[in-house]
């Protein structure tokens, strides 16, 4: 996990994430009722030198992304709901770590 000093965002190195980015669309829909990954609180990125995906969680609004509100009011966060059911445990844990 790496925390940026200037922007409150956390980068997680995922192990099972399939990189589909469905969570990004779900997140933007939660915030603005549109599909727009560029404003999502959660960003899935290709690792530059090896196969794999990092997940960046914005805990504050910055760099064009809306800060995560952990979908308060919903029983399950939108990103976790939209993640394929066989893979979502990792995302659920990441969010819990991000909240703490």
């Amino acid at each position: 996990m790496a925390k940026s000093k200037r922007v409150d965002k956390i980068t997680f190195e995922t192990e099972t994430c399939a990189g589909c980015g469905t969570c990004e669309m779900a997140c933007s829909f939660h915030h603005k009722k549109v599909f727009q990954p560029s404003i999502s609180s959660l960003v899935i990125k290709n690792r530059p030198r090896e196969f794999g995906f990092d997940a960046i969680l914005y805990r504050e609004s910055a760099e064009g992304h809306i800060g995560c509100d952990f979908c308060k009011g919903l029983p399950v966060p939108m990103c976790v709901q939209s993640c394929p059911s066989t893979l979502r445990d990792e995302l659920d844990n990441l969010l819990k770590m991000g909240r703490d």
Partner: protein
Amino acid sequence: MEKRDLYAYAGKILRVDLNSGRFAFEPTAKYAREWLGGSGIAQWILYNELKPWMTPFEPANRLILSVGPLVGTLAPGGSRMSADSKNPLTMGVGSSNADSFFGSQLKYAGFDHIIFQGKSRKPVYLWIDDDHIELKDASHLWGMTTWETVDAIRQEQGDEDIHLVSIGPAGENLVREACIVQDKGRTMGRCGLGAVMGSKNLKAVAVRGSGSIEVAEPERFMEIVLQLREMFKGSNSSKRFEKYGTPGVIVPKQETSGIPYKNFQELVLPDELYRKLDVEDLNTKYKVRSMGYPACPQPCSRYFSVNEGPYAGLESEGFQFEAMANFCGKLAVGDPTFQIKFNAYCNQLGLGIDLPAQTIAWAMECYQRGIMKSSDADGLKLEWGDAGVILELTRKIAYREGFGAILAEGSAKAAEIFGRGSEYYAMHIKGQDLYEVIRSAIAWGLGACVSTRGGGHVTSSPACETVMAIDKKKAFEVYGVTTANEPIAFEGKVKLVEYFERFHRVCNSLGICHFCTTWLDVLLPGFPELAELYSAATGWKTTEADLRRATTKILNVEKAFNLIHTSFDRKDDYPPQRDLAEPIPTGPVAGFHLTKEKWDKLLDEYYEMNQWNKKTSFPTRKCLEDLGLSQIIKDLEKVGKLGGS
């Protein structure tokens, strides 16, 4: 949210004139309501803009990249993109489709389609960064594999998350089934559209989009999305599919004689080879992790790392069953890591896998039968299962070297060039190399043979015939037949093809992956569900009947394109000679013989269903009038191909 004129669609079509380097724009709304989107719109544009004298590789040909209205939303499976153009293998309809990240990015950048025409004087790539559009020099990329191209463009733009489509050496060298590769692992594989791109000196298209896609009724849309996702939870086919991907179908395909072995001489694998290709072993030994595409609830792809054998060290996104059947079945290679290697190699070269597999299989059978000698093949011994020879021939194909230059034309044309009675062994439909086993599954075979683009098993064929244990009651409800999973039964098969001819075009127009629909399992979303989703997305009330009518129109546009641009008629809707001449030799349906008489009856019924003339296959005046296609009536009359009733 402000009210918009057009929901779900991005709204704009980008036209690129590669001769002048100029861009122009038109509104998607001009076509959307009537032609749905994706390849539906693309085929209508091609019908109107291409003349018969325009050949596939000349500047006047158009290449259209398309993304449907449901892409970039959470519609389950909504990640597909299409490429459409004149087909270098058949000279008729060319259309191919792939999963993509590119598709949604293009929509977020504001575009539903990009239409290329002309030819650039030097290699270029198109860079779209929201409203910044630029043709950039690609001289330094020309000659690179697609993987090298992806890395180079991402480095050039300083962004590892740019998505692109590109061609490799095969496209640059106009190999007839060169393909367009999305990032490093998904391809618009059929119909040689990578060669069309190469003929325009267009190396790649890269895109980054930060805009949004809005749907007309957001709450209703999400309600439907959640309902549709529930359908996947109840489907065993979906669970198996997520675990193994399409290679998992090796089991039912072996049980229904659906695997081409040694150029379709047999239709089952020998036991020893079948055991070596076990999909559980494949996952256990080589899978690193699952890979998925936007909005898909069942990520079916896998990233592999090969740690043993001659290809140790290779890492790649995995392959489809088609690759397994082509490389280990048709070419009889006994090493399961070869599937990963050959698939990766073809992706890097930008070469559709059907062409090397089928042309090499043709050559190997000719060698087996003494029709071809090593001296005809640059001194290579064309022994079945020789992976080294296969890889070397594939390289020669991509670079049009020596014997590879003949194979690069596809097996139909290669056999025409080579002669010596080799034509019988060239398995193709309308000039495009064949992967599908025709003679052991009737609807599967019929759909492939009548497909407007020349073969292909998604264009009109049902997967259900051979790959799933079906809920018979639900199958009757959805397809209207009781024989959906009885491969060699004839009854009901034309009705199945009727369903899938239209349903396929719904998927390709809206941008939905077939595997997220009734194509994989009757329990998954079908016509009614997609109609509801499209209605909530666009705000246009659309029923199943509306979708069926729109896609019947698209089908007839494609049929008319073929009639105007080629000499295809009834005679071209038959299987290869081998399928009608030879009973199935071994396996569970040994002895079954698909004869010409049986095929004739099937074709008669199929043409009648479509209101096409039985003798010629030409659409009748009534068919086209019912669909409101008066322009096509005039065009077909001009060329003497309007069907008499």
